[in-house]
C-alpha cells in the first residue's frame, strides 16, 4: 500500500540552525505514528513543514503521491491535512461553537459563499455540535474560547481538527496540561480514529505511557534528524532513545508509580 504522506530529505534551516535535517519518512493509512524526541528536536517544526506553516529549505512533501511542496498551509488543509497545535491556537473572541463550526465550514462546498446565510448551512452546525459532544465541550458551546480553562482549550483545539475531517491527523501533544480524568477522553477519541482504519495519524507526545498505549510505530527525532524508526518496544528500548530522550533507565521511572 502506498504511503499517504511522505517526506523526502525534508530540511529547514533558520540561519545557521538546522531545525529539521534531511528527514525522509512515510506514513500509512490506518496507522498511528508517534514522533518523539527531546525538546527542540524539531518535532513541531517537522509538523509545520508537512502542514505548510513553514516552507522547507529543501526536500519534498508528498500527499497521496503528489508533490505538495509548493502548496501553502491553506492548500494542504484543503487536501486533507489536519493539524492541532502545541501552543493552543484558537479564535479567542468567537464562541466555542463558532470555532468548531468554522472548521466544519472549511470543508464545505459553499464555504466562501457571499450571499447565502451561514445559519442556513445546518449540516455544518450539526457537525460542529457532534464533535463538541465528542470532546465533552457541548456545555460551553456559547462561551468565548478565550475564557476557557487551559485544559478545555486543548480539547477545543482537538475538536477543531476533528471537525475538519481530514485524511491526515497531526496531534501535537494533545494532552499536555490536561487533567488526568480528561486524558482518557482524548485517548479514546484517537483510538476511535485509529479503529476507522483509513486515517493517517501522527502524534507528538512526551508521555511515554500514552505513546506506548497508542502507537503502532515510533519515529525518533534528535537535533532535527531522524535517528530511530520502528516498533514501539524496540525503539523505546534502543540506547539512543534511552540516553538522549528518557535520560534514565525507564524501569526506574515506572517503578515510582507502578
Amino acid at each position, binding site marked *: 500500500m502506498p504511503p499517504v504522506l511522505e517526506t523526502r530529505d525534508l530540511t529547514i534551516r*533558520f540561519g545557521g540552525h538546522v531545525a529539521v535535517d534531511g528527514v525522509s519518512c512515510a506514513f500509512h493509512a490506518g496507522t498511528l505514528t508517534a514522533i518523539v*524526541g*527531546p*525538546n*527542540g*528536536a524539531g*518535532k*513541531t*517544526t517537522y509538523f509545520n513543514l508537512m502542514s505548510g506553516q513553514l516552507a522547507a529549505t529543501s526536500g519534498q512533501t508528498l500527499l497521496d503521491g503528489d508533490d505538495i511542496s509548493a502548496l501553502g498551509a491553506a492548500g494542504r488543509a484543503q487536501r486533507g491535512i489536519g493539524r492541532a497545535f*502545541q*501552543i493552543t491556537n484558537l479564535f479567542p473572541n468567537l464562541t466555542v461553537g463558532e470555532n468548531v463550526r468554522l472548521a466544519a465550514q472549511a470543508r464545505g462546498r459553499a464555504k466562501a459563499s457571499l450571499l447565502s446565510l451561514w445559519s442556513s448551512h445546518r449540516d455544518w452546525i450539526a457537525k460542529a455540535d457532534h464533535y463538541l459532544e465528542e470532546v465533552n465541550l457541548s456545555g460551553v458551546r456559547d462561551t468565548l474560547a478565550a*475564557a*476557557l*480553562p*487551559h*485544559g*478545555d482549550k486543548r480539547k477545543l483545539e482537538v475538536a477543531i481538527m476533528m471537525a475538519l475531517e481530514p485524511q491526515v491527523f497531526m496531534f*501535537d*501533544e494533545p494532552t*499536555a*496540561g*490536561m*487533567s*488526568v*480524568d*480528561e*486524558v*482518557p477522553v482524548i485517548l479514546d477519541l484517537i483510538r476511535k480514529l485509529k479503529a476507522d482504519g483509513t486515517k493517517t495519524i501522527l502524534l507528538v507526545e*512526551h*508521555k*511515554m*505511557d*500514552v505513546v506506548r*498505549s497508542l502507537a503502532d510505530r515510533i519515529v525518533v527525532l534528535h537535533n532535527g534528524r531522524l535517528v530511530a524508526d520502528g516498533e514501539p518496544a524496540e525503539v523505546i528500548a534502543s540506547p539512543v532513545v534511552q540516553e*538522549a*530522550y*528518557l*535520560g*534514565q533507565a525507564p524501569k526506574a*521511572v515506572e517503578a*515510582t*508509580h507502578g
Partner: protein
Amino acid sequence: MAEPLLTLEGVHTHIGQYHILQGVDLALPKGGMTVLLGRNGAGKTTTLRTIMGLWKPSRGTVSFAGRPIGGLPTPDIAQAGIAYVPETMAVFADLTVAENMVLAARSGPVDPARLDWIFGLFPALKKFWQFPAGVLSGGQKQMLAIARAIAEPRTLILIDEPTKGIAPAIIEAMITAFAELKRETTILLVEQNFRFAASLGDHVAVMDDGRIVHRGAMADLARDEALQQRLLGLSLDTHQ
C-alpha cells in the same frame, strides 16, 4: 507547625461577572513544596493569579510572611519575594533568551554560578542564548519560563504546570533540581503530572469548583489510590 509563609483565608475571586474562586483556604508552611491538584477549570490558575495580584480577590485575605498582600499591586507582591511561572509561559517573544533572563534578575546581573546551574538544568537555553525567545520550541519556552523564576533566590515560587511539554529526560533533571530548590525556598506547584507531583510534593491540596476540597500530606495521597480515584478521577495504571 511554624508560622505559615502564605495564607489564603476565604478568598473569593470574580472574573467579570463570573464567580471563580468561592472561598479558598490555604496555608503554605515555610520551606518545602505544596502541590495544588484539580481537574481542568477547578480554579488552580486563578488561585495563583490571585496570589500574584493579577486578579484582585473580591473577598478574603491573602497574607505573605505575616503581611497582607491581597489587593496590593502586582509589582509590590513580586518585590516581596514571590516569583511566578504562568501557565502560558509568557516569555517575551521579541526579546532574546538572554534579555529575558536580564529582566528576571531584578537586582543586577545573574550570578554566574547560578546561571551555570540553570544551564546544566536546561542546556537548550545556553544554545539559544542570543535567539529571540519567540523561536524556541514549546518545551524550551517552558524551560525559559522556569529559568526566569529561579534566576535569583526568591522566598516563594508559584509554578503553573511546569512539566507541560517537557521531555522525560528533562523532567528527571527537573525533579532533581526542584528537590534542591525547595530546600532554600517554598514552592507552590500546580501540576497535572501526578508522578512528578508525588515525587516532589510535601503537602497537597486538591481543588474543585473554586474551593479546596482536600488538604494533607502528599505521601498520604500517593499511598491511597482510592482517595486519588475519588479526588482526581485518575487511574494510575494507564495514565501518569
